[in-house]
């Protein structure tokens, strides 16, 4: 029997690369900010007259290395020298960010300050998951065929934007997360054993 990987390798590969992940989300109808990629950060300068950017390392997760630029002089403060530049139009959040977690079929959410500075900040404050929020999270999961992930969502001008997705996050703030996680891993093992060939290949979004 071939070994199973949770989440599947190709899914994690796509999810880890923000350039790929953003397009997969956008194709699935998930609202994402306008996204640009370039080899050098200076190429963004002409576009700053029509709005700022959040520039992120294209392979990092958890909000590491995010720099907000609003004018050409700010571009000098972007420290990445290797790899593609990943830039999304910056939308000023109306309030705190929302981190939405998905385990199996369950959706949870917390409101968090950004960037989080303390463990308490990371735990955030639980929010009730509205049908619209649940639908948004399910849409993200369906796009990647993932059972374990989180998405970072901001609301700006009353419009939601998904600004990051991570496979297998820390599930901070999710009630009974260890039990839920163990349950999902257990059921995945049982499925893998009964299927014999448990390496699902991700569906290409239509």
């Amino acid at each position, binding site marked *: 029997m071939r070994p199973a990987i949770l989440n599947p390798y190709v899914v994690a*590969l796509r999810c880890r*690369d923000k350039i790929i992940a953003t397009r997969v989300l956008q194709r699935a109808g998930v609202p994402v900010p306008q996204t640009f990629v370039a080899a050098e950060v200076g190429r963004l300068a002409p576009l700053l007259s029509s709005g700022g950017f959040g520039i992120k390392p294209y392979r990092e997760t958890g909000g590491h290395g995010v720099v907000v630029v609003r004018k050409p002089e700010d571009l000098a403060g972007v420290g990445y020298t290797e790899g*593609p530049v990943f830039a999304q139009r910056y939308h000023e959040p109306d309030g705190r960010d929302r981190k939405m977690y998905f385990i199996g079929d369950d959706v949870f959410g917390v409101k968090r300050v950004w960037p989080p500075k303390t463990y308490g900040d990371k735990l955030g404050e639980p929010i009730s998951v509205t049908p619209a929020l649940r639908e948004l999270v399910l849409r993200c999961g369906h796009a990647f065929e993932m059972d374990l992930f989180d998405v970072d969502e901001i609301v700006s001008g009353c419009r939601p934007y998904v600004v990051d997705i991570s496979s297998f996050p820390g599930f901070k703030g999710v009630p009974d997360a260890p039990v839920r996680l163990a349950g999902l891993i257990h059921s995945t093992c049982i499925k893998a054993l009964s299927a014999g060939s448990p390496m699902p290949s991700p569906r290409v979004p239509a």
Partner: protein
Amino acid sequence: MKLHFMVVRRVPPVPSPVLLEVFAILQKRGFEVQAEIAEESLLRSDALAVRSDLYVLKSHTELSLSLAGVLHAQGAFMLNPYLSCTGTQDKIVASHRLRAAGIPVPATWVTADLSLLRPIVDTTPLIIKPHRGHRGAGIYIVSNRRELAAVPPPASPVVIQEHIPGTGEDLKVYVVGDQVFAVRKPFSADSFARPGRPCRVSSDVHQIALRCGEAFGLGLYGIDLVESPDGPVVVDLNYFPGYKGVSNVAPLIADYIHDYAEGRISLELPSLAAAPYEPAFENTLAR
């Protein structure tokens, strides 16, 4: 039929004569050929859609690989196949796949902490490579603990291989489908930009080269070999190389692309059979 070549800015920045000839041949046959250097553009990646019948991934840059990933996720037809290219570019994945296919490769380790190599460098010289490196950048050869300590801490994981003494020259093998060519050239920091001297392909090397293609689902690729006292050993593998030093190769590449585009050839990254269990971690807790 529309062909889109994802190419790289070359060093020096002049178009590849081999590729220009390939384009001309394909255009004469009625293909619409487009070539783009991702590094020279500002792209809306959230709007990138499949607009060509075949994408030919020639560039090895991270930006091109990410854009290829965007196209692959939308079902683009690609040469070489996207997953074959990502598997080749990541030396951790590649070294395992080569070994699993029974291809002779050096003993290989992976770590982000070079101090773990101390007991190993006591017994054999090592070559340290970035796990997603290309063109020989960021490579260190160390023969003892002092030289190991002088290597800067890696920013990302490195692949470490037993450094196999050879003839002092790389044997570079280039493959187009089932046709195998070889050149020899001394290894140096800029040797990737220089053509080698054509040389005969031994039956051993011919067989190893074709097995590499089968193991990765590649049709246009190159391998670097060291000719050790125990026989040829594969030390690097690249999709769609420059074919520098191979004469009259453009018509063969054009034929291959033509056949692939029209479905007479297909490629796929094969599944590996599960390997028997053996401990893969070197004694990391017993330092």
